[in-house]
């Protein structure tokens, strides 16, 4: 079935290419494989190098976001009065798209060296933080009441309840939070790279290829690289999910 999907996609692509300036699939594939390990003359870097640069920024920012979002999510789900404080803030900030933070980030981080890079990391942080927080929060919150009641009947200390009941239940939330957070972070970094001069990265690559002109195949190859990296990131995390939670 999957193969059929791929064939259909390729067929559609050929069809669209026939009527537009979209380069043919085999041309893109050729460019893609050449640029994967050979540096492209204008920017002097390979696609792998650009992808590594983008990935590095995403991982740094996401790790930062997760290390705050996960504990905060669990604790604020656990403590009702904290929920009252944190949730309105999150609900107010969450609908603001990461890209809307860019101008503000430039202003705030202007005194720091490497303003652009710091801002990009901040934008990915914003992108990764909220989906992760919400997912962790929801799963931690929805611990079955009867389990909690039973623990309390047996006079289990709160610390134990948190460790043995709430944490395992929130694990699913953590895993999917990380997966969704990384996905959103990956989208944010590409977009952030297109707005400012980042020096390297897949978003920047695509933009410069457009500016210099005549490089539609390179643009699509860059997009393919974004898709490939995103796909593998997701795949890796799904695998990891099974490792961490074999009971699911």
């Amino acid at each position, binding site marked *: 079935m999957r193969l059929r999907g791929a064939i259909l996609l390729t067929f559609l692509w050929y069809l669209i290419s026939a009527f537009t300036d979209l380069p043919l699939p085999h041309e893109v594939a050729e460019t893609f494989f050449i640029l994967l390990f050979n*540096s492209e*003359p*204008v*920017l*002097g*870097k390979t696609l792998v*190098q650009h992808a*590594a*640069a983008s*990935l*590095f920024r995403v*991982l740094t920012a996401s790790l930062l976001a997760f290390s705050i979002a996960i504990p905060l999510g669990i604790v604020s789900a656990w403590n009702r009065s904290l929920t009252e404080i944190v949730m309105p803030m999150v609900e107010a900030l969450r609908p603001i798209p990461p890209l809307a933070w860019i101008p503000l980030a430039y202003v705030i981080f202007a005194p720091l*060296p*490497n303003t652009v890079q710091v801002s990009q990391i901040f934008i990915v942080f914003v992108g990764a933080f909220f989906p992760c927080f919400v997912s962790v929060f929801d799963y931690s919150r929805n611990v079955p009441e009867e389990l909690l009641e039973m623990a309390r009947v047996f006079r289990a200390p709160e610390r134990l309840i948190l460790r043995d009941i709430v944490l395992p239940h929130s694990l699913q939330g953590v895993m999917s939070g990380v997966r969704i957070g990384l996905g959103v972070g990956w989208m944010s970094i590409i977009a952030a790279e297109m707005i400012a*001069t980042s*020096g*390297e990265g897949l978003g*920047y690559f695509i933009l*410069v290829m457009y*500016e*210099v*002109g*005549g*490089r539609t195949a390179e643009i699509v190859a860059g997009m393919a690289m974004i898709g490939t990296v995103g796909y593998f990131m997701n795949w*890796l995390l799904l*695998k*990891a999910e099974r*490792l*961490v939670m074999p009971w699911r």
Partner: protein
Amino acid sequence: MKRLIALAVILAVILTGCQQAGVEKGEIRVVAMSPRDMVEQLKLGEIDAFVAWEPFVSEAVVNGNGKIIATSADIWPNHPCCVVATTEKDNTELVTAIVWAHVKATRFINNPENREKVIRYAMEFTGKSREVIEAAMTRIKFVEYPDEEEFVKYYENLEKGGYLKRSVEELGYESEDDFLQDFLYKEVYEYVNGKLAENESWMPEKVNKTVRIGYLTADLHQLAFYVAIKEGYYEQVGLQVEAKEFANGVMEMEGFKNGEIEVGYLGGAPATLKRINDNIRISIIAGANSEGSAIVAKDVSSIESSIEELAGKKVAIPGFGTVQDFLLRMVAERAGLRITV
């Protein structure tokens, strides 16, 4: 165990990422930014050097933190730089009027009698101090038509450097000569020049038309455009000018493509590059200047008037495919250095 493997994979990815951050020897790291930002960033030490058009070179020098390590005259003597291009080549009346105004303005600039007025116009156009302008003017040659033999080097080097994606045959020309003849459209200039040689006060017929003209941010090379407005040359031939500013020549070519402008002052490199790559049908109807760019490094850095020492340094250019990018690539190639981002 399996968890450890997963962790190792993630760590490996991060480490490769870290390694990319370092600069290899024998490489020049380029970043693109507007010339206005370059002066500031050089002061802050965010970049080690920049390549820009005047008056930003002189500004960095006069303000005491920049040092010229190579002028574009050193790199490529008498190189064509900014040109006047149009998509309306076949509208002879319009082209004649534009070329006439441009030639009049260029002669006005080059006339020593007008020196005081020219400097004042230059200060208004770029917003820089008198000291900066006076230094900058010594490094620019204002011309009326680019040296065609030199101009061809743009085409040749862009092709050699892997910048060009199409051949002139794909654009429907029989040969390179055929293309260049259409691209470097000198006829109107020759006509105007001839008429003016006969009679200095000759003027083409009024066209009574609004024309949208693109130019680059505070680019002193394009002073003729500002002088033509201020001295009323456009008015005299019945042109109402709508000026449109662009950050660099590559962006201005996008303006041509999207029909935002009919005429534009821009660098020869982006004009050639995008004419071919994106088949944006412009022709060059006049020249604006030769030379007038330079590589500037920070005074306190270890760069000492030698290109080799740019290796491992961070150098700013106004954009990929601009004249300044082109000049940097020329020196890098001669010094055996690689350009990367």
